[in-house]
């Protein structure tokens, strides 16, 4: 029992806030306040308030050391806005208490109205406490993350990776699960069910005092659900990308710093070797040398005018017409052409042969041609030509 007026305690807190704040910081860091540290802090502040701290139940002894009582600790934490992120397991406990209260309200809806009203009030308190804890946690995670981003404490990259990973895996993702309304096992989902339930009974319940409490619960839940949605958005849209970025950046930078320690001894990613058709190739030197070698021996080169020994052959139509006429009848015209030319020249050019064959088109000639007969092959120099067998019986009027 505290034997002192509330105002006195508040005035005491106000007057001695400096050493109390210092003690709070010690407890945040170490969990407890060592009795020597307590004496040292109080002596430094020229305060002899130890007995009051104990009488007003601000401090409580823990073995030989001390700690600030939870109610004062929370008050100082709240007014300083210096929350430490809580593990989601701590927040998860509200799931059980809220679910249990809700179950009993449903089961004993028509039971003792006083108990029902107490349960409704308790449920509202638990929901409020749950929301405040979520809000505190989001805020503290944001602060921690921003501090990590600014890296005021100059912690090294590896430690940054560890911290960022810890925030993500142990705090943010589990907290997000608690707030995920689409997840059937989440607290947010449970609150949604309670909201539906209270909405039904705020309008339709015999007992007026319970109806009022259902109504209060319903409006509280509208507010809480909105706020939780906002917290969830902060987590997914701001906090998670921010801390993911810190983690990625720190991993990459740590990788580069490790690489730069010994860049020539590490395996590097494979980059395609360009294969271009180059003007210069491995054999260019030898090709060029070969060309230049050709010009090395500077001997005189003489060019002589080409003399054409072959006289231009002119087809003497009259001569060959006469020859044809004298050989009539010619049974195989093309063979005759070949034979005639061979008699006159050592070598028969194809031009001469074709010239001679034009005789067959002479209007005065009478030709015979058996379309069923086989074609014949005539060899002129290297060329073999396939020709039909044409018989010439008559020329002109003879």
């Amino acid at each position, binding site marked *: 029992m505290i034997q002192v007026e509330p105002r006195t305690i508040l005035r005491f807190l106000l007057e001695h806030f400096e050493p109390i704040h210092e003690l709070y910081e010690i407890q945040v860091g170490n969990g407890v306040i060592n009795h020597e540290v307590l004496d040292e802090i109080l002596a430094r502040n020229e305060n002899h308030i130890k007995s009051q701290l104990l009488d007003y139940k601000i401090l409580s002894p823990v073995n030989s050391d001390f700690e600030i009582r939870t109610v004062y600790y929370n008050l100082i934490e709240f007014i300083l806005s210096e929350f430490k992120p809580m593990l989601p397991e701590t927040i998860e406990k509200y799931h059980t208490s809220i679910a249990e209260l809700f179950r009993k309200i449903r089961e004993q809806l028509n039971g003792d109205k006083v108990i029902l009203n107490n349960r409704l009030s308790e449920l509202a308190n638990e929901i409020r406490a749950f929301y405040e804890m979520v809000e505190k946690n989001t805020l503290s995670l944001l602060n921690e993350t921003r501090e990590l981003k600014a890296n005021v404490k100059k912690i090294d990259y590896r430690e940054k*990776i560890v911290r960022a990973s810890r925030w993500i895996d142990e705090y943010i993702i589990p907290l997000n699960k608690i707030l995920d309304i689409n997840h059937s096992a989440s607290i947010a989902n449970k609150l949604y069910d309670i909201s539906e339930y209270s909405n039904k009974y705020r309008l339709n319940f015999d007992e007026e005092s319970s109806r009022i409490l259902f109504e209060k619960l319903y409006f509280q839940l509208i507010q809480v659900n909105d706020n939780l949605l906002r917290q969830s958005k902060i987590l997914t849209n701001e906090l998670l990308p921010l801390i993911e*970025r810190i983690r*990625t*950046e720190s*991993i*990459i*930078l*740590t*990788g*580069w*710093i*490790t*690489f*730069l320690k010994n*860049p*020539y001894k*590490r395996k*590097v*990613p*494979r*980059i*395609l*070797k*360009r*294969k*271009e058709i180059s003007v210069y190739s491995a054999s260019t030197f030898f090709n060029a040398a070969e060309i230049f070698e050709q010009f090395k021996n500077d001997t005189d080169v003489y060019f002589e005018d080409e003399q054409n020994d072959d006289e231009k052959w002119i087809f003497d139509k009259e001569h060959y017409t006469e020859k044809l006429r004298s050989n009539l009848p010619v049974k195989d015209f093309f063979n005759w052409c070949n034979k005639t030319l061979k008699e006159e020249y050592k070598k028969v050019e194809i031009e001469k042969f074709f010239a001679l064959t034009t005789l067959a088109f002479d209007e005065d000639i009478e030709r015979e041609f058996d379309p069923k007969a086989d074609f014949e092959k005539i060899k002129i120099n290297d060329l073999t030509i396939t020709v039909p067998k044409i018989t010439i019986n008559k020329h002109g009027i003879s």
Partner: protein
Amino acid sequence: MEFPNHHRQIVEDLMSGKFVLPQERSFQVLKENEQSYTYFFKASFNYELKLTQDYAYLISDESNEMLSRDMCIFIALLSYELDRDGKNFLERIQFSEFEIEEIENYFTNSSYIDLILSNKQLKDTDSRKNFINTLNRRNIIEKTADNRFSFTSAHKFFMDFASDIVKYETAEKDE
């Protein structure tokens, strides 16, 4: 036999060691025909096609290791110096332009100066200019003016390499 549109462009770019980027029309064609192109490059040249959402490129057993190493050193140094200068190096590399002068400042005042001076492609202003042109030819950067450039999404290829260094080291420690 019918080839997809931009087939020639795709083959020419990839075979010349370029990163094909998502904003190029040929990237979409590659995505749509990933399986056939993977088979095509494997069967024709024994190259492996790597296609991510940020880039496409070819991997061969025959690698230009020296160039790859110099690229890693260049990006590593730039990342380190940007961070030392209080910049968000990843954001800057991802989203903003660099002036050659800024790069010069970082490299000439770097604490890794010994490493820089011993590297043929990074040792002085002229070498670095040539090297930046090489990065441009490979589509790792895009020159926006004669003295300005920005990194393309292909830079992620190298960032992934840096992440892997840490991951492998952590995995080795865990074993």
